[in-house]
């Protein structure tokens, strides 16, 4: 095969294909990660010029130190009641994940995605935002719904695609939509929510509203064009929006290097757009809260958008369809230098004298029972594939506001097929 140049005096070009540091079976050593001391990062004024945040794009905002105390200018100084509420929402998110994961393994649904280890990146921002600020999540932000008090029975109905599922069984499990919780419908296509959040924020500004938008994305999908379109539009129109990049190190089996992490940080993407950027310890709920509050205040005062990189670790597989043991070292999780967000907040509350191991055990038990009861409640409405789904004609609804002739004809065909397959079916909703 020819095609190579014959300029023999020049070195051959070499293609760099990124490779993660550790593969299955490898010992893990995270000493190459620079983890700055908690409390050491400056906190610029919320209305500062974007350029003043440049150093923070390469630093890491941290509040909780190794001694479990909150320190430094980013300490949000939350009262104990708020901290306990935060802890409870994160613990409920984890209990919910565990139960739903088991449910999928038991065949009650087709699919599930846990957010284990990343709970702080959704619960803490949800608490720092106003409850009517609009969120455009990716697929691992169930903590927002839980934090906003959305009924977990509704979440389970959706996961089971059952007869009570508000989304009529149309969406893959966990692709919630909850307008009353100011929670946008989750796509399943990656990064599309980013420009949409900007559009919502632009609309809010056009109307002279006071509500802002926030959106989430994984570090892997920052490579999508939508991410860059969103960043451009947000800075061009100074839109009141917060961009969260949850850098959990892994996009299914591709490590963050395939999104550019070998060259720079994800927070530093903000610099080229002239946007404020913050890089945050994503396993430190207080740092995440403080960063979100900073960005929310900034957006609400027309001082512009902010990009926040949450440096965290995906402790479990991408989804129930994934087996991380095939591509990464199992030791990564235990060696992760930023610890576990629930444990860190728990230890902080204990250090403050506002919590105890006994209280924690009791809370976990209570939450487990609560999720179990909600699961039983949801199961009354059916589980996936057991016939208690929405009626056939609903399949044709909501394609358009009104049913056009071609969908009317196709709907009649679907109902005809049902009668052929299940002659005993009756209009009263008794489906096999």
């Amino acid at each position, binding site marked *: 095969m020819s095609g190579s140049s014959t300029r023999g005096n020049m070195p051959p070009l070499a293609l760099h294909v990124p490779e993660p540091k550790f593969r299955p079976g490898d010992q893990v050593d995270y000493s190459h990660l620079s983890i700055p001391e908690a409390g050491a990062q400056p906190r610029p004024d919320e209305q500062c010029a974007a350029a003043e945040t440049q150093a923070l794009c390469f630093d890491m905002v941290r509040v909780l130190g190794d001694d479990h105390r909150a320190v430094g200018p980013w300490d949000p100084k939350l009262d104990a009641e708020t901290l306990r509420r935060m802890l409870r929402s994160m613990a409920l998110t984890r209990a919910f994940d565990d139960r739903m994961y088991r449910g999928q393994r038991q065949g009650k649904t087709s699919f599930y995605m846990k957010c284990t280890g990343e709970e702080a990146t959704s619960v803490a921002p949800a608490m720092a935002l106003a409850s009517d600020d*609009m969120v*455009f999540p990716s697929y691992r932000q169930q903590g927002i719904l839980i934090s906003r008090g959305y009924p977990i029975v509704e979440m389970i109905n959706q996961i089971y695609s059952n007869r009570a599922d*508000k*989304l*009529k069984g*149309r*969406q893959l499990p966990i*692709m919630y*939509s*909850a*307008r009353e919780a100011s929670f*946008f*419908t989750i*796509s399943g*296509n990656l990064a*599309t929510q*980013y*420009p*949409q*959040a*900007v*559009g*919502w*924020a*632009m*609309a*809010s*500004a*056009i*109307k002279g509203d006071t509500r802002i*938008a926030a959106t989430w994305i994984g570090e892997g999908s920052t490579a999508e*064009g*939508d991410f860059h*379109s*969103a960043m*451009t*539009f947000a800075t*061009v129109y100074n839109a009141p929006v917060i961009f969260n990049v949850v850098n959990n190190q892994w996009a299914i089996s591709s490590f963050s290097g395939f999104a550019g992490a070998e060259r720079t940080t994800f927070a530093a993407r903000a610099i080229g757009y002239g946007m404020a950027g913050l890089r945050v310890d994503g396993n430190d709920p207080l740092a995440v809260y403080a960063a979100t509050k900073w960005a929310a205040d900034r957006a609400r005062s027309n001082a512009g958008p902010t990009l926040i990189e949450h440096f965290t670790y995906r402790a479990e597989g991408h989804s129930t369809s994934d087996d991380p043991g095939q591509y990464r070292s199992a030791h990564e999780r235990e060696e992760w230098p930023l610890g576990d967000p629930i444990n860190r907040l728990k230890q902080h509350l204990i250090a403050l004298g506002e919590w105890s191991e006994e209280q924690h055990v009791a809370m976990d038990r209570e939450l487990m029972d609560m999720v179990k009861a909600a699961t039983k409640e949801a199961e009354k409405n059916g589980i996936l594939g057991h016939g208690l789904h929405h009626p056939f004609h609903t399949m044709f609804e*909501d*394609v*358009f*506001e009104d049913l*056009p*002739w*071609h969908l009317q004809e196709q709907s009649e065909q679907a109902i005809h097929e049902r009668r052929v397959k299940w002659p005993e079916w009756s209009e009263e909703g008794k489906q096999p």
Partner: protein
Amino acid sequence: MTYEESPVSLAEAPTRRLNMIEAINDALDIMMERDPSVVVMGEDVGYFGGVFRATAGLQKKHGKTRVFDTPISECGIIGVAVGMGAYGLRPVPEIQFADYIYPGLDQLVSEAARLRYRSAGEFIAPMTVRSPFGGGIFGGQTHSQSPEAMFTHVAGLKTVVPSNPHDAKGLLIAAIEDNDPVIFFEPKRIYNGPFNGYYDKPVEPWSKHADSAVPEGYYSIPLGKARIVRPGNAFTVLAYGTMVHVAAAVCAEKGVDAEIIDLRTLVPLDIETVEKSVEKTGKCLIVHEATRTSGFGAELSALVQERCFYHLEAPIERVTGFDTPYPHSLEWAYFPGPVRIGEAIDRLTKA
């Protein structure tokens, strides 16, 4: 109130002679006045008023936060329009040329089109994407395409193509008021005058054409209703946009008694009008400028065959552009002009 329901008949309504651009501008202006949630955005649409002048004067009249320029990013334009719709606005983004719409395709196909469905009605995308399309202006392969078939293939999108100033205004108002996403393709060859297919003859202005009489003020033409441009018995012509005029001119020249139907909306399609006509004439000629394979003509041909087979007296004729990119210098060799249409008519007439 739709045009058909209007208490004022076409003859009585005060009208002005407008070209397509002026009619579209008028529709946007009226809707911005009637509905404060309507916003217009796109590349060069603001101060400058659009490369084809469709948004001229709108920014000055309605303000910078309702009519504004955007970055050159169709993905961003459609993406923010989805978010604006979720907020409660009614965005009317312009994609400067239909050929440029592809970077915004994911946001249209996977997002706007399915928002209502996937959220069971919690969120909708009430946007109208306006875009000049079609060839015949020496636009080469990146300023001449007719990609309407792609959008008709997507569940949840409506596709509209007006063929004259009167319809352009009424259909655009209906599209903006529609709560579903509408792709509104404007045949740019006929922006300034109808086109009979003879590129070497002088352009006739809209002012000499009956359909340039545009009623003043607000009216709408319902989406999904075709128009019988000329009733006839010899065969049925199904066309839209520029090709309505070209087909009509060839039929007139040949002195054939064709029934010419301007579909106006491709999805939802006015199947009733199509069926009724073909059942009457027994023959069908389908004309579009877009490439042939999997073009919208293929869908039309299939529908006519499935639903009118026992009335057909001849094979359905399909006249289209060729399956090549739109070439610059050989533009008129590509265009489905009088020769291609005329020969199809001859075959139908002889059958």
